[in-house]
């Protein structure tokens, strides 16, 4: 598909999306989204990531035009202010978790629907639907009823239906959540290739950090109606802005430490440190911790060792009662009860602002 996805007839002019002071308060007074300023670059895939109720779907629906922002908030597609345009006049493509395919129409009729309501002439409509189905490798399914399709096929029909009208922005609301794990991985790759190939501005909402990392040019991590961090997947993973982002993305160890006279003390390790004296927490990823035979910063006892093939995940109980998760190479042989020493490169330590 990667080759055909670059087909010029589906290439679209990338349109940036800008939100200005968009907040959303629902009728019952609940604030779903705090005022948000955000720019999504043309052709970029922006992923909104967060737990349920964090405001990511509300943001997507504001961009779609299914919800309107509280007074004062404005939504721009390029230079055009679309705040007052309803969804049917914004020319967006939308893909839903529940697929939302029309059960009274077959595959080709579903894909053709957007062209039908745009009164595209019959012959041209048929041609574009055929091209789209061929591009999604579904030409042989054109006449199928929707209830004869698998979940993965349904979501591909939904993608085809959203893309055939050449939308300015493609909006995807948890499109893979209803699929089982294996299909999810396959379709995720397909969506990735499709988005790169088309160069379309895309907004992707998910609660799955793996999907977010794999698909996002940039990720907006959200919590309780606010943006916690916006950045590339690497930014989010290696330089989390706060404790929430650090804990939500991947696995993170908290190391108890003390600061005295500008010196940070973790186990036997001493580092020059700026910051107020007292107890503090520094963070480190499991893959940045090493098991070693001598020296080491901390000493502890292995409580769990799980062989995962490419790596062995080891949980080590250290002296002060906390546990540290270590991702060691797969060939590491440690067993429960072994005493191990833990070492790490001080450059890999993360500290967070005080408000955490």
């Amino acid at each position, binding site marked *: 598909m990667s080759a055909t996805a670059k087909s010029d007839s589906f290439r679209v002019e990338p349109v940036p999306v800008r939100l200005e002071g968009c907040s959303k308060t629902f009728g019952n007074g609940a604030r779903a989204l705090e005022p948000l300023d955000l720019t999504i670059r043309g052709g970029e895939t922006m992923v909104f990531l967060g737990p349920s109720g964090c405001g990511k779907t509300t943001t997507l629906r504001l961009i*779609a035009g*299914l919800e309107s922002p509280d007074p004062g908030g404005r939504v721009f597609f390029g230079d055009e202010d679309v705040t007052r345009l*309803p*969804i*049917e*006049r914004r*020319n*967006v*493509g*939308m893909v*839903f*978790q*529940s697929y*939302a*395919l*029309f*059960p*009274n*129409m*077959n595959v080709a009729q579903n894909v053709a*629907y*957007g062209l039908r*309501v*745009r009164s595209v002439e019959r012959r041209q409509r048929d041609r574009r639907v055929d091209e789209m189905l061929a591009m999604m490798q579904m030409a042989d399914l054109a006449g199928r*009823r929707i209830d004869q399709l698998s979940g993965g096929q349904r979501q591909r029909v*939904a993608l085809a*239906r*959203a893309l055939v*009208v050449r939308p300015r922005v493609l*909006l995807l609301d948890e499109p893979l959540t209803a699929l089982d794990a294996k299909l999810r991985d396959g379709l995720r790759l397909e969506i990735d290739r499709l988005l790169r190939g088309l160069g379309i501005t895309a907004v992707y909402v998910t609660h799955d950090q793996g999907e977010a990392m794999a698909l996002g040019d940039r990720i907006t991590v959200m919590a309780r109606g606010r943006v916690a961090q916006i950045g590339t997947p690497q930014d989010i993973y290696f330089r989390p802005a706060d404790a929430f982002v650090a804990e939500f993305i991947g696995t993170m160890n908290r190391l108890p430490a003390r600061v005295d006279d500008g010196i940070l003390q973790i186990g036997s390790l001493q580092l020059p440190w700026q910051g107020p004296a007292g107890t503090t927490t520094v963070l480190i990823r499991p893959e940045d911790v090493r098991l070693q035979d001598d020296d080491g910063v901390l000493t502890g006892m292995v409580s769990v060792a799980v062989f995962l093939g490419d790596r062995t995940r080891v949980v080590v109980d250290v002296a002060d009662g906390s546990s540290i998760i270590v991702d060691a190479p797969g060939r590491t042989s440690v067993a429960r009860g072994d005493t191990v020493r833990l070492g790490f490169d001080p450059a890999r330590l993360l500290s967070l602002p005080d408000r955490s």
Partner: protein
Amino acid sequence: MPSILPARRTLLAVALLAPAAAVFGAFFLLPLARLFALGGGGAEGWGAYAAILVEPRYFESLIQTVLLSAGVTAVTLAISCVSGLFLVRNRFPGRSLLVAVLTFPLVFPGVVIGFMVIMLAGRQGLIGTVTEGLFGSRLVFAYSMAGLFLGYVYFSVPRVILTVMAAAEKLDPQLAEAARSLGASPWQVTAHVVLPALKPAFLSAGAICFATAMGAFGTAFTLATRIDVLPMLIYTEFTLQANIAMAAALSFVLGAVTWAVLALARSFAGSSVAAAG
């Protein structure tokens, strides 16, 4: 577990089905056959059935009844569809009270509904009084087909509205959102997505509405005088003229015609569903 031989299994199945078959025969097939035979057992013999088609009085009554029921069904579906969808999509203070009030006519027998139609559009009715005050002449339609039509619609709306609401509540709201995202106007969403999805509900509710209207008697009997729907005709033949054979023939035909119209509607809907798929 010892396996049961196929022949014995069949025997067992027949034995287990026997009670149901006996009840079905005794309370459905036999009475129907007896009714059919009765229709052909009068002075005119089987000619009674032919008379329904040949004699204008019977034939016109049959056609009138079918047209009235079809009209009632169409209007009821239209009213219920609009108000049912509105009630499902909108939440407002007093909504549940309104739903309760709308379903209120369910508790009334046809006689009471006929009485209410007379109070509204009868000789001393509200509409008559108002029109006399405004135009100088009384508008009275309670004792005609129009009065019967009004009563039947009033009687049928609650049943249909509840069915439509139940079906509309189960509709995935993302279907309509998907259609809108593709550029469909609200009217197009309704025509292309919502109504097709509600079709099964319309079909079953409409069938019940039609069958009820075909056989309704109480309202017609209350309004009486100038109305000649089939159930009234059967009553007249049976009690006043003691023409039992004719009454039986008419009864049988009433059932057969209702069944045929419903079967037709069902197969038409079924074929259109298949054609769409």
